[in-house]
């Protein structure tokens, strides 16, 4: 059975036929792309093609590919969303955005008043303090919700968490020497704000909620896929997973189910085992590969984050004078792993945020390639936010790709100008224009759940480079065009995952993975990109529609 889908416009990302109006789908793959007349020629040999006009007023693009996200995105939907923007849950429920700390507190009070088990921990997430500049949330806010149960609010960045005094007393918070991670008022009293992993750890140790188990559960995976699907994504990544022995079996069962609406590429946590064992484990994992589940990447994390002041920067380090950030692995060890994986023919994606880290990662990749030459290794730097043009030139020489964290421009752009980098260096933050100018294969990402997963929004960020405060970063040379941004969230990401022969463009023979949009993004242009309504997706020929979209 073959179906021809008629559309208002089809943007194929295939340079031989960039624009079309009809696409024929058969057995989960694309039979043909072109005009109605082009379709007719196929019928002689392939039998009648049924015309479907459901999307005749829609615009079709290759299904979006999120090259750097985490399935953790799906883990919080059993708890209470308290973010700034309206957010649609995996079941299509819209959670209204809350526009002040008082609104957040009022919402939590309402939840507490209406729930049956008032002693159970009350966990909320998505809180985004960048929009509330007058003050920070504190323990008194959450004590006003309850002093008899744990009240915990996770920030959208996942790097910070607020707790009430019930939690702090249960944890017996101590140790003035760790004030870096426990925010305190002028009298040295903890304000209830905890940074980094400490907050998560404390929440688990005091409430008994096993966030780690929830993070890897099948329900979380399904929620993640549905959240991603609603934004037009057909292939996403879980860009670091330790994959304990045996965990691949339930994962594959979940993903291979017909109604699971997404392909998933899992990046194995590269240093969760010693190099030799890790290579062996990766080979074992690859036996579980299927059409929808891929173990094809290794992830290594080399430094921290810029906004957390844990990224490794070259001199003079941070604009505000904060001391240089952290290595998450010894550079020497990073080199050992890169050698082992390169030797085994395994592609590595390295998390680097600061420019010092990017440089060291390139040094280590170069060493690995000298030891074990591999022309199409396609090792990729992830985030790579502070790369200079010189770094991009070197990446080009080494055959290294980049996946930039373009959403940062919006979420932390103001902070990078004023606090972390200063105006000159902030201009080159996530320099997609620079990467393309130097010929480096480019993808862009959300790092969901750190920022909201929505490739059209990520594209908007790379095109406009505008912060949440309304400031434009850079002088225009760092911006990319709408066409380039759309390529980055489709073929660019596919290339970074070595899937460019399967997905990422709409052309004969490839998988029928399609994003169905209300408007053509090329026609809409730079400003409106992020506001285009996603009607649904097609995955391997199966249509998944969003509820209530037009």
């Amino acid at each position, binding site marked *: 059975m073959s179906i021809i889908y008629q559309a208002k416009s089809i943007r194929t990302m295939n340079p031989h036929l960039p624009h079309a109006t009809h696409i024929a789908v058969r057995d989960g793959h694309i039979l043909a792309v072109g005009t109605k007349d082009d379709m007719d020629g196929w019928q002689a040999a392939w039998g009648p093609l049924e015309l479907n006009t459901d999307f005749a007023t829609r615009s079709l693009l290759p299904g979006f590919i999120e090259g750097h996200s985490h399935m953790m995105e799906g883990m919080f939907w059993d708890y209470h969303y308290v973010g700034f923007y309206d957010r649609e849950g995996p079941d299509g429920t819209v959670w209204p955005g809350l526009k002040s700390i008082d609104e957040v507190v009022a919402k939590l009070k309402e939840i507490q008043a209406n729930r049956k088990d008032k002693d159970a921990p009350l966990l909320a997430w998505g809180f985004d303090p960048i929009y509330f500049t007058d003050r920070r949330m504190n323990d008194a806010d959450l004590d006003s919700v309850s002093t008899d149960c744990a009240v915990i609010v996770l920030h959208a960045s996942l790097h910070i968490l607020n707790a009430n005094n019930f939690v702090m007393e*249960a*944890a*017996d*918070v*101590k*140790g003035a*020497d*760790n004030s*870096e*991670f*426990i925010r305190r008022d002028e009298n040295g009293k903890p304000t209830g704000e*905890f940074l*980094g*992993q*400490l*907050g*998560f*750890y*404390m929440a*688990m*140790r*005091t409430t008994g909620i*096993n966030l*780690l188990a929830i993070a890897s559960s099948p329900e979380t995976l399904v929620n993640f896929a549905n959240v991603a699907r609603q934004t037009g994504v057909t292939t996403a990544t879980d860009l670091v997973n*330790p994959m*304990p*022995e045996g965990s691949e079996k339930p994962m594959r069962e979940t993903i291979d189910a017909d109604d699971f609406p997404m392909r998933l590429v899992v990046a194995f*946590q590269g*240093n*969760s*085992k*010693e190099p030799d064992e890790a290579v062996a484990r990766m080979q074992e994992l690859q036996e579980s590969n299927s059409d929808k589940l891929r173990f094809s990447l290794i992830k290594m*994390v080399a430094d921290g984050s810029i906004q957390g002041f844990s990224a*490794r920067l070259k001199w003079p380090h941070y604009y505000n004078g904060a*001391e*240089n950030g*952290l*290595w*998450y*692995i*010894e*550079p*020497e*060890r990073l080199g050992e792993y890169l050698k082992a994986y390169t030797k085994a023919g395994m592609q590595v994606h390295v998390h680097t945020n600061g420019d*010092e880290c990017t440089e*060291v990662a390139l040094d280590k990749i170069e060493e690995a390639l000298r030891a074990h030459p591999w022309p199409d290794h396609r090792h990729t730097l992830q985030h790579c936010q502070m790369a200079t043009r010189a770094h991009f030139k070197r990446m080009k020489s080494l055959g290294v790709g980049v996946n930039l964290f373009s959403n940062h421009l919006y979420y932390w752009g103001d902070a990078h100008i004023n606090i972390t980098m200063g105006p000159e260096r902030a201009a080159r933050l996530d320099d997609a224009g620079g990467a393309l100018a130097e010929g480096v294969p480019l993808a862009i990402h959300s790092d969901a759940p750190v920022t909201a997963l929505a490739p059209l929004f990520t594209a908007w960020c790379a095109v406009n480079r505008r912060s949440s405060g309304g400031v434009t970063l850079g002088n225009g040379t760092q911006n990319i065009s709408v066409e380039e941004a759309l390529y980055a969230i489709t073929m660019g990401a596919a290339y970074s995952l070595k899937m460019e022969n399967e997905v990422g463009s709409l052309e004969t023979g490839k998988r029928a993975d399609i994003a169905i949009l209300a408007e053509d993004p090329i026609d809409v242009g730079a400003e409106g990109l992020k506001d285009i309504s996603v009607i649904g997706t097609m995955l391997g020929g199966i249509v998944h529609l969003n509820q209530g979209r037009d």
Partner: protein
Amino acid sequence: MPTPRKIPLTIISGFLGSGKTSLLNHLLTQADGRRITAMVNDFGALNIDAELIAEKHGNQIALTNGCVCCSIGDDLMRTFIEVMQQDPLPEHIIIEASGVAEPTRIAGFASVDPQMRLDGIVTLVDASAHHLHSKDPHLADNYAKQIAAAHLLVISKTDLADAETLATLRDELRVAYPQVPLAEATHGHMPIDAVLGLNADAPHDLPSGPPSGPMDHNFVQWAGHLSPVPRHEVIKRLETLRPHVLRAKGILTDCDGAYVIHYAAGRVEIEPFDGDASGHFVLIGTPALPDNEALAQLF
């Protein structure tokens, strides 16, 4: 109801290759019935004898002596969660930090865990490579932080450095960190009582009886029975030995009654003791301490 005793956490920090694993190995052989859980980067490097392994389960290996080794695998939080689910809970946790870890960050876990407390940060300084590590273009700042965070500094691999290098390093560290005890070790050979219990407050930690087993040539231990002596007097005597004492403990008595004195990481703690004071006093230090006769004289 008495507060349940919190599990002490010891962090072994130092540059890649500075001898952290050797030290940990050596400590585990001295556990002597103490249920120590060691959090390590790599089982392989630990070189555990097959006959010492009682059970292997996931990323945990139970040893026949009651100790458990857990591999961290780059997920410290997950490993801490798993360790705190052990039944019975460990009596002491030792973590072998990665060569780039900031020990104060790791210590943060103890500060938000209801059942854990920081016992101490032990930083190894590789005598043979200090001149390289302290000038490393990417790691020098991190290295300096590890040293600055230490409650106990240990110059390791002393056998691989010449006398002059060693003397210079010793002076450098003493001048920079006059309050932090400084020990030296080869192949990780350190008495367990010099490393664990830096902050310990429980009198039952007191080693009883005469020094057990031969001490490595880098350490000396002295034990004696002290007649009633005022607390300030003991402190004064310890002060005279200061750079060379790593730890001292005693259950002593004076006109105000029995007390426990504990000296570690350069600090003295004194607490009233509920019971009969034995007068027992133990001291662990470097070879620079006066000889036994002189110590007996002093105390």
